[in-house]
């Protein structure tokens, strides 16, 4: 199933990283450069690891004396972004979906419309005889029947993808310390912090700002809070015999409301800074990435709207729209920008592992 990873994108990233390895001025920006200096030659798996370790903070691009029009034509953030995207295509399972939503806004929108239509249809034709709150429109049984596979399938697909990643980069059995270090790096977005600069370059070109980091933190933590909200509701339903609707001072709402707000504002902010940044320093996937970011924002916003509409006649429509967004988000996750979370975390774990072992990674 796996293609030969020695793609054009990997070869171009390797050409550039070999220039970087002879220079090394950028060692202070992020983990990519110290990882690079551990090696002299870069196998395909090494390039995949470096590409996924890169957070596209762009500090190295604006500092680089070899960017175009210099004949060396270094643009490492873009080269690693291309190699990174290619790697996700290789790891995608089933491969037929590779890159489908990551690169294309249209496909993402089509799935979203289909998902919302499906939910409208279900609310229309499968409306239960009785039920409280939104269960009056869509029974708990139907929701479980729909969302259990819609949740478990992406988890399975990403697990297979990460396993393929791990094989390609030569990963070894993981210690708890590796997960812990990777967790700290991910939670703090250490690699979007620009080292001593304390910020990265994005929407303000060669000036340092934290706009993208803050927006990403809002989305990431907002998403995790929302995930916590759903998890707490599941536990309450099955183990505490405490069914929805939940009041404002219950765990699902205490986690979900701030989570939804963070996710909505963060996603809007993130999409906005993305439109301001130079597209030539990232992957050629602007539409897909913005569509994904806005979908995440829509999940948060429609969830908040649904809660705000409690008891009104807008609930059935908002319920269908919100659940349609959630469904589209879940189904596209392994093949959208969302997948970067899994691969990036795997890269951070592998980096922590190599550093812990105090030896170089796989040699060519």
């Amino acid at each position, binding site marked *: 199933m796996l293609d030969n990873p020695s793609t054009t994108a990997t070869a171009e990233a390797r050409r550039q990283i070999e220039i970087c390895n*002879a*220079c090394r*001025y950028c060692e202070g920006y992020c983990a990519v450069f110290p990882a690079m200096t551990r090696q002299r030659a870069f196998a395909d798996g090494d390039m995949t690891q470096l590409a996924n370790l890169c957070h596209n903070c762009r*500090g*190295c691009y604006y*500092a*680089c004396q070899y960017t175009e029009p210099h004949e*060396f034509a270094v643009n490492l953030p873009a080269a690693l972004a291309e190699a990174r995207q290619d790697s996700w295509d290789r790891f995608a399972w089933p491969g037929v979906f590779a890159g489908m939503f990551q690169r294309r806004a249209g496909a993402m929108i089509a799935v979203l419309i289909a998902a919302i239509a499906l939910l409208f249809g279900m609310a229309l034709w499968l409306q239960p005889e009785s039920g409280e709150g939104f269960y009056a429109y869509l029974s708990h049984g139907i929701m479980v029947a729909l969302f259990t596979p819609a949740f478990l399938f992406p988890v399975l697909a990403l697990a297979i993808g990460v396993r393929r990643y791990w094989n390609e980069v030569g990963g070894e059995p993981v210690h708890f310390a590796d997960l812990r270090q990777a967790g700290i790096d991910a939670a703090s977005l250490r690699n979007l912090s620009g080292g*001593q600069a304390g910020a990265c370059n994005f929407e303000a070109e060669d000036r340092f700002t934290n706009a993208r980091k803050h927006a990403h933190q809002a989305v990431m933590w907002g998403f995790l809070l929302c995930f916590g909200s759903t998890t707490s509701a599941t536990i309450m339903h099955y183990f505490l015999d405490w069914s929805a609707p939940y009041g404002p001072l219950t765990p699902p709402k205490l986690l979900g409301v701030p989570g939804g707000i963070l996710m909505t504002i963060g996603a809007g902010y993130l999409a906005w800074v993305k439109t301001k940044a130079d597209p030539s320093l990232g992957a050629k996937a602007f539409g897909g990435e913005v569509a994904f970011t806005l979908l995440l924002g829509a999940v948060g916003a429609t969830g908040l709207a649904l809660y705000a509409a409690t008891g009104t006649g807008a609930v059935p429509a908002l319920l269908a729209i919100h659940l349609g967004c959630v469904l589209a988000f879940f189904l596209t996750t392994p093949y959208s920008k969302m997948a970067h979370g899994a691969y990036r975390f795997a890269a951070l774990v592998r980096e922590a592992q190599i550093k812990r072992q105090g030896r170089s990674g796989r040699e060519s």
Partner: protein
Amino acid sequence: MLASVSSRIHFRGNFGRAMRDVSKTIWDVIVVGGGNAGLCAAIEAAEAGAKVLILEVAPKPYRGGNSRHTRNFRCMHQGPLSVLTGDYDPDEYYDDLLRVTAGKTDETLARLAINTSESCLPWMEAHGVRFQPSLSGTLSLSRTNAFFLGGGKALVNAYYNTCADLGVEALYEAEVTHISLEDGAFTGLEATINGETHHIEGRALVLASGGFQGDLDWLADAWGPAARNFLIRGTPYNRGVVLRDMLDQGAVSVGDPTQCHAVAIDGRAPKFDGGIVTRLDCVPFSVVVNKYGERFYDEGEDVWPKRYAIWGRLVAAQPDQVAYSIIDAKSAELFMPSVFPPETADTIEGLGQKLGISGTKLRETVEAFSAACADGDFTPTELDGLATNGITPAKTNWARPITEPPFYGYSLRPGVTFTYLGLKVDQTARVAGPDGDLLNVWAAGEIMAGSILGQGYLAGFGMTIGTVFGRIAGQEAAKHVG
């Protein structure tokens, strides 16, 4: 010249406005050259309230002169300072300078640069420069040199942003061709901007336009025709136009007009702007031959950081200004990775053919060298005394037989870093004219560094000279226009 099309596109945004204003305005301070020294001068002058114009000859992507290729700042300090460890007192710093220049320095100016460097580092941080701990492979400099996060181009970017915030006007592709001096005073200058000649008036002038190493004709006049085969490691835009114009008008010169600082670099480097990645650190572990396959100097005389400049001159003296460094498999990973992969062959003869020299002669030379190597302990990181016996020239350290295939070969050429000829200045960075100090002209950076660096080079000291004298020049110019 390079990429002027794309840079003009970059510039179109404020070009019209700037062009309307630039010739009409009487500027308080005009800074010629937008590298480190010029930017420091512009920032100081603007902070003192002056209306400042920077004329930078390069297009925007190449702005910053040689500063864009630098990576650190040599800094005196009493106790740990920012990323610097330990301390580096002024006498030790001055001794280091005396050693590399063999005493060819102006002690007053040198000590001024050294003593002021300590207060410059926090100033640099306050104006947007970020430092990082010593890079891998440069631990020996962690006490004396503060490394710029991302290198010199990041520093240049930070200063341009600071200038923009201070209202300094910066024009790119603006080549100053003539400085108008009347009775020892600057009155205005001629500049070619976007192909048109403009007369621009100002009340004070700071010259920070570097040396002349980008002008190969001048280099060839000064050094000899061999200089046409030299590579220029830095910017092609340091062509010495303003320097020559000032000298023609009687400004007092310093520094040897015939000399340039050159190091041995990868012979396949671009003609200009190859920068740091074209270094080759393999010489001490190799045999080096000329185009006739003959050795000509002790490759193991000392550690490479102390010898790369000497090798620049040695290679410059060889036929066609080229040499070849040959190693075998056991030395392949003893030095920093090179940007261009070496030529590789399983036999020395085959390697010679790939390098374009006589394989037979190369084999004879390498075999004679290998036969002259003795047994002993090899220590790549220090002088190990592992020397050859009975060949001339001897190799006095790290001499191991070159016998283990595959064999690798790199070509070497002289890479010019900077030239020494410059303008004489006093402690206030004021330029000396034919009849005493000029009234309102100051100079900073490479264009006056020859006073302090009469020969040789001390890592990170060019940026120190530029920062210290750039700041002084800016302050003095602003004070003059008051």
